[in-house]
């Protein structure tokens, strides 16, 4: 009994020493390389389900995305068409209306690849995702809009417009999420 007790204490002590050796006052935060990120991104779903997915990619699609500049002021204007796809799987007994929020951040430098011509949509691959290769986000934004919240009924297209009231905006990124 005494031996058992002693071995148990030794084991606990050893484990404690190992844990204590790994504890430090501060820890580094993960850094991410945003090169190649799209100009339109969405966040992870609010929760995961056993059947199916709650990813926004499953629920919405982008119909157009244009970047133009106001002639009088030189302000960048981003226009995005967002459409609710409706039910995509057999378990979707009814395609639901969704509530979304979108926020645009404008940067001096481009985030994604430049569009072929001003006012045209960005080039995308067969899956509908933008061609990779942009420099990504590596500097603070010159302007960030407030989060816009909107309801998207099934099948409807919502036309978002973001204006950057600071001149010389070269790039932007719009983040979508549920609210």
């Amino acid at each position: 009994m005494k031996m058992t007790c002693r071995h148990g204490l030794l084991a606990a002590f050893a484990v404690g020493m190992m844990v204590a050796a790994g504890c430090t006052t501060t820890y580094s935060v993960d850094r991410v390389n945003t090169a190649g990120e799209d100009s339109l991104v969405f966040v992870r779903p609010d929760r995961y389900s056993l059947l199916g997915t709650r990813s926004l990619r499953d629920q919405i699609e982008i119909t157009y995305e244009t970047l133009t500049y106001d002639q009088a002021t030189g302000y960048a204007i981003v226009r995005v068409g967002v459409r609710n796809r409706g039910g995509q799987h057999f378990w979707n007994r009814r395609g639901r209306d969704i509530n979304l929020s979108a926020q645009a951040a404008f940067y001096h430098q481009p985030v994604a690849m430049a569009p072929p011509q001003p006012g045209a949509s960005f080039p995308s691959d067969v899956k509908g995702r933008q061609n990779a290769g942009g420099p990504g986000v590596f500097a603070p934004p010159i302007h960030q809009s407030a989060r816009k919240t909107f309801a998207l009924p099934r099948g409807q297209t919502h036309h978002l417009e973001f204006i950057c009231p600071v001149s010389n905006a070269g790039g932007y990124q719009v983040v979508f999420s549920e609210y």
Partner: protein
Amino acid sequence: MQQKQAWQVMTYAVLAAVMFGFGCRTQPKPPVQLDIHKVDHNPFGSAEIKQCASEMGPRILMVPEIARAADTTRIVVQPLSNSSTIMMDTRMITDALKDELMVVSNGRVRFVTSDDYEIGQSNMIVQEKIEAARDRMLDEVAESILQSPVIANASKPPIIAVTPALNANLVGLNANSFIAMLRAKIASRANGKVFFTAPGSLEGAEYYLTGEFIAESMQREGMINLVDYIYLMEDRARAGQSVDVYDNTGAMVSPASGALTRERRQALQAEIERSAQMQVPPNVNKHLNVMLVKADNKIAVMEKMFALDQKMTRGLERVEYTLTGNIASQSRYVRGSEEIYIVVTFKLIAPDTKEEIWAGRYETKKAIQRGGVVY
């Protein structure tokens, strides 16, 4: 048996202690910080205010009249009218919009305050600056008088009598003390080049140091001819009265004496008495025209005008546009929840032409679950 009962008592005591302990709380939980951009149960909360300001601000800057303006555009914001069912301080919306515009316009847009307290404080500061500047002005006027040819080139020191300024009733200022201060400034710098008669005495004077207050916004009453004014003072001085024409003590001046006719003197006196009743200092730009008048022929041989007081304004003279608007709402109650549709409209109006040069609209619709007791 007794041991069993003892165990039961102990068990109940422990249970009671645990329950009592869970029921006690020494201090409340600290507050939880919430994101101001997050939509909440408020029909028009922080998220909606931020969205509204973020959308409307750049659109105002893109209005052609503002985008192409060469200089800074000045706007005065009127409070939004609230015709909705929501109880809220509409200044939160206009303040958020002003903050957004001030940040992103980079000086192209400025706002003129419409807050009475802020305007009052600003006017108080301006008034104190004007009063501090008056002392410097007296120095300048005194120097101008001493440098005038009639004094600088006089073969012997001229004798000057100081008389009260004309139309003091128009301006609400203490004219006599002002002229007296001017006399003191001249005397201190004269070094014997000028002599003054005793205060109130016109005897032996070659020149009268007098003045005329001028208010830019003229009142109908109280305008008196300077020459008649001087004659009135001389008549009073000869009759042994003070030269202050507002002083009603002492015997009346004999109608037969003096340069003024009886009718003219009575009319002047009546006008002076009526104008003396006006006690409220008018809010206008005020100037003082200081004059050196020759006593024998009443010719002003030297005069200099300077600004005494400034009209206190609300700062609207440079405003180019007015920003105003309205909040409206429509509600529907469905199975314990309220569907509310809110519209905030803004208008930019040019005051000169009354044109609405820009109109903006922010709208939102929410379904809010209502719970609890309905009163």
